[in-house]
């Protein structure tokens, strides 16, 4: 993902609690609606950002964490870049992934959706600051 100067930056910080994911979705809906995206594309972005927040909450496994989820939207002429950052530790997985081939693996659905809905997706873990970031891009159709 190349760096370019954003026209505007919208930042939001929400508590790491399920009831606030809807707030992030409303905000991203507002941001994306201001750009030249189709109705379906706006919906895709809303779902992808909601999923990114939900993946963070999944790591809490029902617990609560004082550290917030930060959503940063970089609005550019040709694209929208959204970064969802948290510093909630990655859990140590003790159970192996499901071998049930008949039914989908629910735990992966969120990340699968993000990759389908957005044009570019990258994740970054910074061991020094303990932050995890999902960076997602949706391009404006020419």
């Amino acid at each position, binding site marked *: 993902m190349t760096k370019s100067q954003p026209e505007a930056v919208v930042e939001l910080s929400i508590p790491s609690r*399920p009831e606030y994911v809807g707030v992030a979705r409303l905000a991203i809906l507002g941001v994306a609606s201001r750009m030249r995206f189709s109705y379906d594309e706006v919906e895709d972005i809303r779902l992808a950002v*909601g999923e990114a927040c939900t993946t963070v909450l999944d790591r809490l496994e029902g617990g609560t964490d004082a550290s917030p989820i930060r959503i940063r939207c970089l609005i550019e002429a040709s694209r929208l870049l959204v970064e969802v950052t948290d510093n909630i530790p990655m859990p140590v997985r003790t159970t192996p992934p499901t071998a049930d081939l008949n039914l*989908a693996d629910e735990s992966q659905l969120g990340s699968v*959706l993000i990759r389908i809905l957005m044009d570019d997706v990258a994740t970054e873990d910074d061991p020094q600051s303990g932050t995890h970031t999902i960076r997602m891009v949706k391009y404006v159709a020419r």
Partner: protein
Amino acid sequence: MNLRVETRTPREGVAVVGLSGEVDVYTSPRVKQEIVDLLNQGATRLVIDVSKVEYLDSTGLGVLIGGLKRAREHDGDLRLICDNPRILRIFEITGLTKIFDIHRTEAEALDGLK
């Protein structure tokens, strides 16, 4: 209220659960609880109407998948009603149309449900 859950039992052992609003990480535990309660009460053939759902995320999909698994463990079934293109698209892109029996109308969903 972000989510409304309305359940009817058109005949013994069969329940139709109408969902309207948002099914997400916040509200989906209620849907899960409703499904679990119905199965425990003996309603093992479930029809979940998601036509009026405005927003469905992976948590909601997970609850429906879990419901289908549980219903089958009870020798039952879980079918969906959906005529909403936006919601149908989520099932399509995740490949879940292969797992779920999705109908356009309640009559169609109830048809053949023993």
